[in-house]
């Protein structure tokens, strides 16, 4: 595919992600922070987010599996995940975390298990989509093009 086409696909894909609520303005902020001196900034931050989230989701699964569920600990984990998803603009993950925390307060194990499933699902979705986005970027760069910037998010 030639560069122009790749760039158009990239812009369309990015717009869709914002439109469908997977990403919010904060992702745009991260893109602003990327430049020639830091060309991989967004990928680096998002990779940290993936690692962090993976760890938290595993801890959450374990925590909910305990005989005596420690809701305070679970809330702390979800709070962390809410924070990091918010920092990269992963809006749907963040919203799922907010819902999760409400159920933590009510100390309902079954509801929390469902919430975790929801958060996990949203996380996997945004991860897949961001990885696709980064692949598109790589293709553009490989074809000698510049990654276009979306102006309105």
């Amino acid at each position, binding site marked *: 595919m030639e560069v122009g086409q790749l760039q158009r696909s990239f812009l369309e894909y990015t717009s869709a992600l914002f439109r469908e609520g997977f990403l919010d303005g*904060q992702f745009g*902020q*991260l893109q*602003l*922070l990327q430049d020639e001196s*830091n060309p991989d*900034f967004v990928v*680096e*931050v998002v990779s*940290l*987010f993936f690692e*962090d989230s993976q760890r938290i989701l595993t801890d959450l699964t374990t925590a909910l599996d305990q005989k005596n569920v420690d809701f305070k600990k679970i809330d*702390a984990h979800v*709070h*962390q995940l*809410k*924070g*990091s998803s*918010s*920092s*990269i*603009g992963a809006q749907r993950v963040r919203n799922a975390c907010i819902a999760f925390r409400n159920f933590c307060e009510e100390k309902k194990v079954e509801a929390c298990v469902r919430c975790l499933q929801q958060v996990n699902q949203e996380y996997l979705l945004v991860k897949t989509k961001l990885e696709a986005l980064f692949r598109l970027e790589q293709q553009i760069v490989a074809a000698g093009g510049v990654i276009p910037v979306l102006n309105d998010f």
Partner: protein
Amino acid sequence: MAKNGEERENYEAHVLAVDDSLVDRKVIERLFKLTSCKVTAVDSGRKALQILGLDEGEKSAFDARNSDINFDLIITDYCMPGMTGYELLKKIKGSSTFREIPVVIMSSENILTRINRCLEEGAEDFIVKPVKLCDVMKLKRLMFGEKNRVFNKRKLEETYEASPNGALSISSRSSSSSPSSLDENELVRLENLML
């Protein structure tokens, strides 16, 4: 002693960033570096105190009280395991060496009582996360790049109160207002008037 123009231009403000989240530390670091600041990022209040030399326990590899390291701003997350940002703020404001350094609190939760508590304890500003570039650019004005930044800012305010015909109005340092909205060029011009 105030710096001459060239030294002032080359001076890089040094920020101490405290946040237990790795993702947030990376973003904060980049945000400040983009505004030409040096950044030291740590993951806990404890480590921050160690770097400042205020930790009663362990000694850090370097102790800011005895070294040439000076921080122009300390920015800390509120919710952290162990020591909260609020507790860190209190320790800093309770130190004769460091109480003049502006401390900014960040929090994902926009809770008025929390904000007031921090401002009452001496926090310069409170930022609701996620932190954006415009937030950091506003903070730059707190730093000025001068060692006697606090002295200058107070002098600016006194200078302005004395001249009622001043074209600009400086917002009073009330708890809920953001830092003075003076334009960068105006700040430099006013500083030069005092040299």
